[in-house]
């Protein structure tokens, strides 16, 4: 049955068609090709062997797809699905890092405690603000850069590679550099501001300033990557759309607004979702922007994100149960964002049609 459908798929291939049918052992009585007919007078032993081979073939065709996809699902089950569910289970227990096997059932206490913990709300708020001030400029700049890269340019490949280079830097290396650049006393940013006549800013200790600095690292690392994704989508826009827009008297800017941006809508939505997911998981930048002070996200928790808060609870304060509760809360928030995204995209689609 499987092989029959397989040959069906090959038939549009023209010349290959008959040979395939002949070779498909399931079709023993099928309109045979010349080769099969010539070899046909066979003894019972040969027939048995052929029967065996055809059975093996059918088994192979039938089961090998599962064998091919199995590794992914096995690894995912072991290192993705099982931990996911077990995190939920652990979030209902008191578990300490020092003795991860001793679990005491506490019901929803980890969650209720979380909701009355001001540091949780603080981390949630910080995650949100840092997420907004890193994602929004990042995607808007990326869109502009992609538009420029879409022109015919000398050395366009150089620009593309250069723009993508920050993507090759690790969170750790990038953050360490930016810590120096944003240094209060000797940092280059404050020096430049000083040249312009503005006083030095304490980038690490202010709430907004520190969040701005952390966002800068994110924007720096990811804008070029997003620009390339937009560029790819732009190059897939059929040129006659622009042609007819130009014939209708649309300026370049109008073409960008009314042809480019609408055509990119699915891609923009995709990058929004990906960036939002990335923003909720922000961890390395705030951890290392803190210098030696650990996982508190600044002296006053001013840039502690949810990811960092989870790490602090689990691996600094050793409460794995609470860390699990934070993880599940993050997951629920992501699901909410996903649902909101879906609703927004549906509304947008209705608007355009």
């Amino acid at each position: 049955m499987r092989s029959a459908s397989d040959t069906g798929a090959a038939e549009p291939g023209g010349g290959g068609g008959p040979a395939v049918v002949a070779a498909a052992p399931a079709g023993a009585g099928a309109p045979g090709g010349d080769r099969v007919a010539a070899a046909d007078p066979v003894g019972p032993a040969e027939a048995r062997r052929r029967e065996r081979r055809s059975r093996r073939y059918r088994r192979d065709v039938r089961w090998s797809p599962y064998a091919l996809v199995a590794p992914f699902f096995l690894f995912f089950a072991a290192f993705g699905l099982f931990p996911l569910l077990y995190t939920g289970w652990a979030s209902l227990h008191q578990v300490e890092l020092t003795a991860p096997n001793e679990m005491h059932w506490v019901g929803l206490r980890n969650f209720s405690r979380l909701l009355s913990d001001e540091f949780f709300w603080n981390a949630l708020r910080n995650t949100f603000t840092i997420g907004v001030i890193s994602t929004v400029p990042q995607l808007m700049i990326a869109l502009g850069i992609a538009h420029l890269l879409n022109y015919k340019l000398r050395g366009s490949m150089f620009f593309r590679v250069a723009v993508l280079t920050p993507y090759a830097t690790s969170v750790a290396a990038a953050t360490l550099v930016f810590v120096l650049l944003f240094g209060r006393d000797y940092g280059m940013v404050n020096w430049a501001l000083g040249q312009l006549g503005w006083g030095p800013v304490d980038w690490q200790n202010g709430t907004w300033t520190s969040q701005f600095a952390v966002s800068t690292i994110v924007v720096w690392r990811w804008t070029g990557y997003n620009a390339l994704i937009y560029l790819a989508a732009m190059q897939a826009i059929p040129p006659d759309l622009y042609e007819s827009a130009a014939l209708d008297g649309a300026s370049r800017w109008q073409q960008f607004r009314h042809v480019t941006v609408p055509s990119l809508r699915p891609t923009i939505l995709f990058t929004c979702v990906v960036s939002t997911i990335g923003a909720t998981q922000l961890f390395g930048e705030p951890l290392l922007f803190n210098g030696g002070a650990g996982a508190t996200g600044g002296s006053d928790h001013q840039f502690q994100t949810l990811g960092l808060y989870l790490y602090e609870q689990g691996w600094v304060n050793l409460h794995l149960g609470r860390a699990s509760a934070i993880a599940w809360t993050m997951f629920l928030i992501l699901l909410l964002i996903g649902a909101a995204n879906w609703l927004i995209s549906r509304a947008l689609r209705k608007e355009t049609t």
Partner: protein
Amino acid sequence: MSAKTTAPAAPRSAHRSRPRSAHRAGRQLHGGRLAYAILILFTVGSLFPLVWTAVAASRSNERLAQTPPPFWFGGNLFKNLKIAWTDANMGTALLNTTIVAGSIALGTVFFSTLAGFAFAKLRFRFKNLLLLLVIGTMMIPPQLSVVPLYMVVAELSWTDQLQAVILPTLVSAFGVFFMRQFLIEALPTELIEAARVDGASSWRVVWHVVFPAARPAMAVLGMLTFVMAWNDFFWPIIALTQNGSPTVQVALTGLGRGYIPDQSVIMAGALLGTLPLLLAFVLFGKQIVGGIMQGAVKG
């Protein structure tokens, strides 16, 4: 803003050029001066922190604690690199990271090609459901699994050992999807059928037909995965410590937390951790860019 830089495309704007501009409008326009200026500015912004890492790494700690900050290279580069190399164990860390990122890239490419081929070209029950499941797994944040993963790793006494970082990341949903999208077009179904005619088993088809056809995409996926694995941070910092067998990222965290308070040495460490990938970008930048753009359109 960029609209100003380009030739007027609106037919109304210039009588003489009406037919020409209308004809040209659909084609790619040459970038104007402003386009170049903005792009160069953006490029400088992209590259500056990297270059400055090297500048700071070539200076002394005292020089970094002065204003104005240094803009050009000093003479301490090799001294600082040496301190970072020995004190922060960067040599071991680089080797560990290469092993980790290499294994993850190889595993991801291999398993993704197998699964991608099955999803692209074979027929089997629950195929669409399983593919949806693969895509769905991309949505699960890594935070959600670290606690149990850590318990498992601790139970197996794998903490501080590289397999603790390699195994959980050995397959990737993105990779499966990427290979599927590539193979749908790049691998003619007739080719598979022809191999079948010759009596090839599925494994022989995979080895002799799928792998050769998938090679360009495999290279791209391998590079992307390598970059990602090299820079991975969240799980390695939990599973590995500076005292065991750290990856570069974990070792850098140690530097940043002030085990070595010398800023120029920290920058030397950051440089060491970034240099291999920068080198790869110089050599394969074009392919990496192509890979990201390809994945974007099709993903």
